[in-house]
């Protein structure tokens, strides 16, 4: 049992938890504790320390998009993203509800609405009073300062004017052609200018002091505002839900339209006169068509971040599959034939360093040439071009590794194949590919990592729905909230990249014959 768990951990690349399992099994506790301290304790300490450092540094740097978000703000942004996702799902769900379920949901929403409205009103009141208080506080603190500033400003301006007048008077009395006197005058003017400059600096400092007083934060007010915003958002969300459960609901809409249809049909039945009957018939038909349209309509749900994550993962897999489908056969041919290898080598050398940013526009245009109308195409051209860009950038490691793996099959194994006179296919599938498999998978693992990095850039550029587009939208929004959401993206992208890599490690280990294929 213990060894099974240990082996599974080893195969999954989670050797970090090895000592934990051993400790639970009571194997040499001091040694295991030491290892846990080193491999689990120290990383945790490092993470906590970096969070503290982040928390300290972030507020000290202000940007156009507001303050650099602290860990707390980023956490709130993450939960905000999730709430948005859940609420959109709920709305889409509500749109399709029918019968009793709809009535039940409607009752729930109304109850919650009744609960929340007084709370929101109370919160609003609190915000208002706190705002008034804070304004008073600022005025009492900054008001006298403001007066003082005005006085100081007039005083300095007057002093400067006086000095200038004195200088003009002196200049009039200055004898012409006297170099020494003129030199002395020049010095005096310089002194005057310098003095004016320092006075200006003093004024500016004073002004900043006053501004700081105005910008002073009132944590109570901020908290009250946040609470009010939260309640207000929920209230709006609930009112939207109400709409989708009543007039906006699909089944309700259809019932209303069907009633109209009944009336129209009755009218058609009783219609007299050629022109009127034709008109009535046309009306019935158009009504039927409109009912059809409503029945097949969907809630127009905006893309939420979790959807975009799934879409990105799907896109990277499509790209990765395209890339592998090209790279593995090509790599096998390269490894088998030196002529083919010689023919392919310049292309590998030339295209490998090309950035995704260069590939994408080219691919985009070419794909656009094949797909005329994106709305009716089975795949969105932006999605397809992102996937192809991923393929183009990520196929090289697999190609090179496959070629290497195939070319470096042990000579002994080849001799076995020769003695047995294996045909081309059994030689390939029984000897060459199995022996190259570990290297091929090592290449695939690198490829997937590269593909994931490339994908975000490709999506950002091609506006294909996905993580990259989310980042770009958030960047263009430019508010401090979206700034925090971009930080969330960093962690999500990192975590998914890590997960993909782990999956590839497990696959790689399960095909390598010197490891244990029976371990899983």
């Amino acid at each position: 049992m213990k060894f099974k768990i240990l082996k599974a951990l080893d195969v999954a690349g989670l050797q970090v938890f090895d000592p934990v399992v051993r400790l639970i099994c009571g194997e040499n506790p001091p040694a295991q504790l030491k290892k846990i301290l080193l491999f689990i304790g120290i990383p945790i300490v490092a993470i906590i320390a970096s969070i503290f450092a982040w928390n300290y540094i972030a507020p000290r740097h202000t940007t156009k998009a507001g303050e650099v978000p602290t860990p707390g703000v980023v956490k709130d942004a993450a939960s905000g993203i999730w709430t948005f996702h859940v609420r959109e799902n709920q709305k889409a769900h509500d749109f399709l509800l029918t019968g009793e379920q709809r009535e039940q949901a409607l009752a729930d929403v109304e109850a919650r609405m009744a609960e929340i409205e007084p709370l929101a009103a109370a919160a609003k009141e609190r915000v208002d009073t706190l705002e008034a208080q804070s304004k008073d506080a600022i005025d009492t603190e900054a008001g006298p300062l403001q007066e003082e500033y005005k006085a100081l400003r007039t005083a300095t301006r007057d002093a400067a004017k006086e000095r200038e007048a004195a200088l003009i008077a002196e200049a009039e009395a200055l004898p012409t052609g006297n170099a020494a006197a003129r030199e002395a005058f020049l010095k005096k003017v310089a002194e005057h200018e310098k003095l004016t400059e320092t006075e200006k600096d003093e004024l500016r400092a004073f002004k900043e002091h006053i501004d700081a007083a105005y910008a002073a934060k009132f944590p109570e007010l901020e908290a009250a505002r946040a609470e009010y915003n939260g309640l207000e958002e929920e209230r709006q969300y609930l009112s939207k839900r109400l709409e989708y459960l009543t007039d906006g609901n699909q089944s309700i809409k259809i019932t209303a339209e069907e009633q109209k249809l009944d009336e129209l049909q009755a009218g058609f039945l009783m219609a007299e006169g050629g022109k009127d009957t034709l008109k009535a018939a046309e009306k019935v038909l158009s009504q039927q068509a409109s009912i059809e349209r409503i029945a097949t309509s969907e809630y127009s749900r905006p893309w939420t971040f979790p959807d975009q994550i799934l879409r990105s993962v799907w896109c990277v897999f499509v790209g990765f599959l395209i890339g592998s489908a090209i790279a593995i056969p090509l790599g096998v041919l390269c490894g088998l034939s030196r002529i083919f290898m010689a023919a392919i080598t310049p292309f590998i050398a030339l295209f490998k360093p090309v950035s995704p940013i260069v590939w994408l526009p080219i691919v985009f245009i070419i794909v656009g040439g094949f797909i005329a109308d994106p709305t009716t195409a089975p795949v969105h051209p932006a999605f397809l071009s992102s996937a192809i860009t991923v393929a183009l950038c990520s196929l090289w490691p697999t190609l090179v590794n496959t070629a290497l793996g195939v070319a470096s099959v042990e000579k002994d194994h080849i001799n076995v194949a020769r003695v047995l006179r294996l045909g081309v296919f059994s030689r390939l599938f029984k000897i060459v590919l199995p022996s190259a498999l570990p290297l091929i998978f090592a290449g695939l693992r690198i490829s997937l990592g590269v593909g994931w990095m490339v994908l975000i850039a490709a999506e950002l550029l091609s506006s294909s729905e996905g993580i990259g587009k989310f980042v770009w939208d958030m960047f263009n929004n430019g508010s401090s909230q979206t700034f925090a959401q971009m930080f969330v993206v960093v962690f999500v992208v990192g975590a998914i990249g890590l997960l993909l890599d782990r999956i590839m490690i497990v696959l790689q280990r399960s095909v390598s014959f010197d490891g244990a294929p029976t371990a899983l």
Partner: protein
Amino acid sequence: MNEEKYVEIFNLVKAYPNPFGEAVKVVDGFNLNIRKGEVISIIGHSGCGKSTVLTMLAGLNEISDGGIVVAGREITGPGPDRAVVFQAPCLLPWMTAYQNVMLGVKQCYPHAEKAQRRIIVEYSLSVVGLADSMHKYPRELSGGMQQRVGIARAIALKPKVLLLDEPFGRLDSLTRMELQDVILGILDREKITTMMITHDPDEAVYMSDRICMMTNGPHAHVGEIMEIDFERPRDREAIMETDAFYAYRRRLLQFLDDCEAEKHARKQKAAISA
């Protein structure tokens, strides 16, 4: 078919170009006939070209001049009628022992039924004493057991000629003796014509019907052929007690010493003339 000349090697030459592009004949004028069903050992110093002769017979190495005829047909390339047991076991690590043997059996008996093939594979593996470890992967087997799989793979092909290229070279002496008896047992039963490369005189005398002693290279060729007159099946202890065993052994060592002395003399002569 000529029973006396089941395998006929005539005027065999192997030449490699040296760094200056001149052909150097490693093996030159090697002539040997092998009787059907006999076990012949080739013995000689390391690097004299023993393995080169064997790989040429196996078809894995190109023949520069001369020719090899097996059962009335000149060989042109490798084939399962000349099964090889290499010095390293050369098993495919992603296949079990059973699958390793089956790979060859499938190739040799393309029309046999599944059950028949299975019987052949299981029989070959049990002959070498691996009935219990058929479905193990090579990494789960010891070196000696891996070599047994290699032997099973070779004999499962029912080859016309069995080629053993220092098959015990990498094994410890106890395992080596065990495997010698395993192979002798098989050969006594199946009467497969066998050529074995070795540099161990005891092994050569114990296992062969004839021993072919090769001179040192370059231009290596057959120096002397010695008949070994022991009855088959052989018993190691009984043979070890005979005087004949030691006489054969002495003769072999004498030949090898002479070869070495000749090489030394040749070197000195070359040094003097230079």
